[in-house]
């Protein structure tokens, strides 16, 4: 089943055309890594695929909604506890009980921090709060912008497991990363260098 | 009906519009200047003076047309904004952006002439008269649109944001005008108004109508000229433009 298909997508920023002729079809069970140098337009492409960017984006994009999009800004309120943050997350399309949320926080090694304000946690821990959403969402298509940054080795391994699990249950993931491929047999690469407009 | 739709469709195409507006402006310019001259001559020198205000009322022939067209200009902007939001036609963005400064200048003209008219009428340059106050608020609305457009770096987003703002403003303008009227009558009942309800004599009315028509044409022409300048810049690298400029 195709969860996202894009054809002849071009992206402009300001008066400059960044990308041209990007096309991809993401089926369930697939992991796509978007590659490219800094500034080539990886984040812009991901935003366009998510439907957040429309101005300067041409071409046809169809996606299976709801989708999950996770970017550098984690949509986490520092004043709230991890529990509250996940309970009232603005994009959460499903209801999660406090017990389910506690379980998810346990999985990202934040057990015991449920009721502390997120602002008092470290950057890596805050990142984990955002990633705990992966365990609570009902979305089948995940768009992750640099998900491995600010994570330690164990965190990266956990995220890899999580993505593998999601894909094996019929989901699909598109992510950007500078790290070498982690999902060798599952993974498809989209190298934006091929679509960059010089 | 079908012809009209075809015409509207063509308006959205920059090459066609560029040529069409060029011809249109060439005709509009002399007609507008002629109407303005006739209206001004008639209003200034031919029409009889007002029996209460004397000759100072002759300012009506620029104050009222400027005020009327400035208000209409905001609606023109709002219609362009709605078209831009609903059908995403780029030409509507250009039209909206082109109308804003023209409307702002006309509003300023109405304000300044109102102030000048106020001096002999009330003995003060500025009086918080209902019409003048409304015009001042309209000026703020216009300046807000221009400032919002300039503040955005992404000009497509700027146009859409301005479209939303003008639509909000359009819903509010009747409420603002009405509330200012009520506010005025609440605080200063029965003072001398610029334009009373009493029927205006034909000898005074005709030049006023001529001037209102002239100001509408002026608005249209200035807006078209702004649009042409903007289109020229936006399509400065386009093939059709280079061809057209080579020919002419």
């Amino acid at each position: 089943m195709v969860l996202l298909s894009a054809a002849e997508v071009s992206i402009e920023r300001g008066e400059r055309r960044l990308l041209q002729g990007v096309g991809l079809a993401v089926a369930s069970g697939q992991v796509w890594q978007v590659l490219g140098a800094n500034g080539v337009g990886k984040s812009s492409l991901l935003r366009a695929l998510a439907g957040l960017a429309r101005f300067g984006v041409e071409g046809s994009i169809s996606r299976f909604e709801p989708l999950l999009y996770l970017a550098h800004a984690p949509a986490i309120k520092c004043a709230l506890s991890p529990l509250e943050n996940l309970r009232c997350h603005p994009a959460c399309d499903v209801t999660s009980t406090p017990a389910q949320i506690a379980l998810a926080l346990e999985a990202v090694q934040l057990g015991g921090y449920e009721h502390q304000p997120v602002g008092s946690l470290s950057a890596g821990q805050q990142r984990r709060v955002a990633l705990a959403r992966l365990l609570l969402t009902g979305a089948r298509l995940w768009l992750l912008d640099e998900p491995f940054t600010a994570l330690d080795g164990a965190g990266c391994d956990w995220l890899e497991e999580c993505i593998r699990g999601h894909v094996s249950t019929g989901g699909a993931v598109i992510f950007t990363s500078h790290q070498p491929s982690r999902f060798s047999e599952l993974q498809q690469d989209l190298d934006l260098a091929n679509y960059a407009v010089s | 009906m079908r012809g009209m739709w075809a015409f509207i469709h063509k308006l959205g195409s920059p090459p066609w519009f560029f040529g069409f507006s060029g011809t249109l402006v060439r005709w509009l310019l002399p007609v507008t200047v002629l109407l303005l001259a006739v209206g001004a001559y008639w209003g200034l020198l031919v029409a009889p003076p007002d029996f209460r205000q004397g000759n100072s009322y002759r300012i009506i022939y620029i104050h009222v047309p400027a005020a009327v067209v400035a208000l209409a200009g905001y609606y023109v902007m709002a219609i362009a904004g709605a078209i831009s939001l609903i059908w995403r036609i780029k030409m509507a963005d250009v039209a909206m952006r082109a109308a804003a400064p023209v409307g702002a200048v006309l509003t300023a003209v109405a304000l300044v002439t109102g102030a000048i008219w106020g001096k002999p009428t009330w003995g003060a340059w500025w009086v918080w008269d209902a019409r003048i106050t409304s015009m001042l608020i309209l000026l703020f609305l216009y300046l807000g649109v221009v400032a919002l457009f300039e503040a955005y770096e992404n000009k497509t987003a700027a146009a859409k944001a301005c479209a939303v703002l003008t639509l909000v403003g359009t819903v509010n303008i009747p409420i603002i005008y009405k509330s200012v009227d009520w506010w005025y009558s609440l605080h200063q009942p029965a003072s001398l108004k610029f334009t009373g309800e009493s029927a205006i004599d034909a000898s005074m009315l005709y030049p006023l109508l001529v001037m209102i028509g002239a100001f509408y044409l002026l608005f249209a022409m200035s807006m078209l000229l702004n649009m042409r300048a903007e289109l020229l810049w936006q399509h400065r690298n386009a093939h059709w433009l280079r061809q057209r400029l080579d020919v002419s």
Partner: protein
Amino acid sequence: MYFESLAAAWHMDGHGGYVWMAYALTTMAVVLMVWLPLARFRRHLRWVSAHQLRQAGDSQL
């Protein structure tokens, strides 16, 4: 014409200063409304023709 002489039209029973000032300011505004976009158009036109010449020069080289 309503006025008997040009001087009377200029004076307008003491209101002349106001009326003529209002008309003069409006005339200035009208001229600006036409002249500013025209000037911008010509400026862009110069840019385009300069660019065109440069491109033509490039292709000749």
